[in-house]
């Protein structure tokens, strides 16, 4: 048995070595002939304030503001993002994205409320993409990614196809994606009940069309179906007997979203205006309308001013409550007190400056540094201040 195991192990080792050698011999010429196509780095810092009924954190601090049941949603996030793009040959490009979030939370997290164990959380995502120009008019993109955070491990993959039409005046495209999440279903009282999972399947259709020498329109529709444990199990729902229950969602969710975007270049003033509208609807009875307008104004040859405004309006999920009857647990009724799923209106304003270090602002070959400030404020009282600095170099 031992000899057999040893043989199997040797065979496995040999197989692995052969696989590595084959992969290396295949990839080596590709790597040798590849050249860096794109480098991007972005550092962001968020500061969030607010109160929500799902949170058990800092309840005493919330007393004067929201009554005796809303907890703090205070949150700080430091985020680092990076992208490296490589061109393998005339038809194949690759990119690798890395994102790291460090979250300081006194917030809606049960572990914080119960043990303070997660006052600082780390999350990381790695995502690789391959872009293949199958013909001059047909383009395929494959991407695979992995995400890990305190209680969650998640993998995702996506394949998309885009076809150029009408002498490159229009494109049509379709994509299909899958996300699988595994996480610890921690209760609002800090108990860990093992691992649960959920799956998200997504299909998209998209089109773009040049409408004039200065105008482009983009149209996209996405259908998403989710199945599994969809609630954030550690979110609390206040009960009318002053106790707390865990959230409970239906096990499936069907979501539709359609977005229309128009981009208009005004050559005389060297301005670009982009406007978009998204209509969203799902079977949790959420209907949302999102409008966004961004203006890019060139100030001389090397500076671009970016001004943005976004309005988001949503209805609540049908089972949202800020105080559920105490028999809700025994009845197994769906419930959520998460402020993110309540009815609200959010306004966002942003201002940014991009400094072009080299290149001429055309499609590629630009090196730039940008700074940006964003303020996001919800009618529920939650607000976020975000500062961001980025560097980009395209070759």
């Amino acid at each position, binding site marked *: 048995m031992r000899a057999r195991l040893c043989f199997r192990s040797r065979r496995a080792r040999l197989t692995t070595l052969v696989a590595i050698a084959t992969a290396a011999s295949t990839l080596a010429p590709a790597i040798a002939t590849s050249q860096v196509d794109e480098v991007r*780095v*972005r550092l962001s810092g968020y500061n969030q304030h607010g109160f929500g009924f799902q949170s058990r954190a800092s309840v005493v601090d919330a007393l004067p503001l929201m009554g005796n049941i809303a907890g703090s949603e205070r949150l700080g996030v430091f985020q680092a*993002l990076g992208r490296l793009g490589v061109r393998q040959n005339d038809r194949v490009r690759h990119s690798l*994205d890395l994102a790291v979030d460090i979250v300081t939370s006194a917030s809606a997290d049960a572990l914080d409320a119960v043990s303070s164990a997660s006052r600082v959380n780390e999350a990381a995502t790695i995502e690789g993409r391959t872009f293949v120009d199958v013909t001059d008019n047909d383009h395929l993109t494959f991407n695979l990614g992995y*995400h890990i*955070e*305190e*209680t*969650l491990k*998640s993998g*995702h993959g996506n394949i998309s196809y885009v076809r150029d039409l*009408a*002498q*490159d*005046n229009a494109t049509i495209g379709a994509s299909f*994606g899958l*996300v699988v*999440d595994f996480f610890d279903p921690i209760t609002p009282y800090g108990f860990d009940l093992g691992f649960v999972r959920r799956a*998200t399947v*997504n299909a998209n259709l998209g089109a*773009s069309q040049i*409408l004039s*020498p*200065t105008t*482009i*329109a*983009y*149209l996209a529709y*996405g259908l*998403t179906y989710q199945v599994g444990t*969809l609630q*954030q199990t550690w979110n609390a729902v206040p009960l009318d007997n002053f106790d707390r229950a865990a959230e409970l969602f239906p096990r499936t*969710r069907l979501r*539709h*979203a*359609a977005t*229309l*975007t128009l*981009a208009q270049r005004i050559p005389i003033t060297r301005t670009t205006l982009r406007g978009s*509208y998204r*209509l*969203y*609807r*799902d079977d*949790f009875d959420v209907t*949302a309308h999102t409008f966004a307008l961004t203006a*890019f104004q060139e100030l001389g040859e090397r500076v671009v001013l970016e001004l943005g405004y976004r309005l*988001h309006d949503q209805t609540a*999920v049908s089972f949202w409550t800020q105080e559920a009857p105490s028999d809700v647990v025994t009845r197994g009724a769906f419930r959520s007190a*998460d402020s*993110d799923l309540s009815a609200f209106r959010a306004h966002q304003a942003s201002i940014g400056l991009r400094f072009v270090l080299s290149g001429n*602002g*055309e*499609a590629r070959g630009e090196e730039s540094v*940008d700074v940006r400030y*964003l303020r*996001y404020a919800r009618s529920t009282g939650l607000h976020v201040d*975000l500062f961001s600095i*980025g560097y*980009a170099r395209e070759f």
Partner: protein
Amino acid sequence: MVRTGMKRARFLRIFVALAIISVQAGCVVVPAYKREHVGHATMRGSVDPLLTSADRKLHTSREAASGGDARPAGGGCGCSN
């Protein structure tokens, strides 16, 4: 309830009308030599992919609605949105 349904239908009609107008207007073919302005960096679908990604995360972890941007609506984060 009926009023909500009518409102929803009106929004859908407006959205579909805008989409049709966009496609109809797009029947004109702009030759390559006249596409200097539409090729400008600020006219792309995503001006800075990392900025788009950071914004997306800000919104998807705070709002019940997402998607319509060739990405899944939900999944991949420790949130129930």
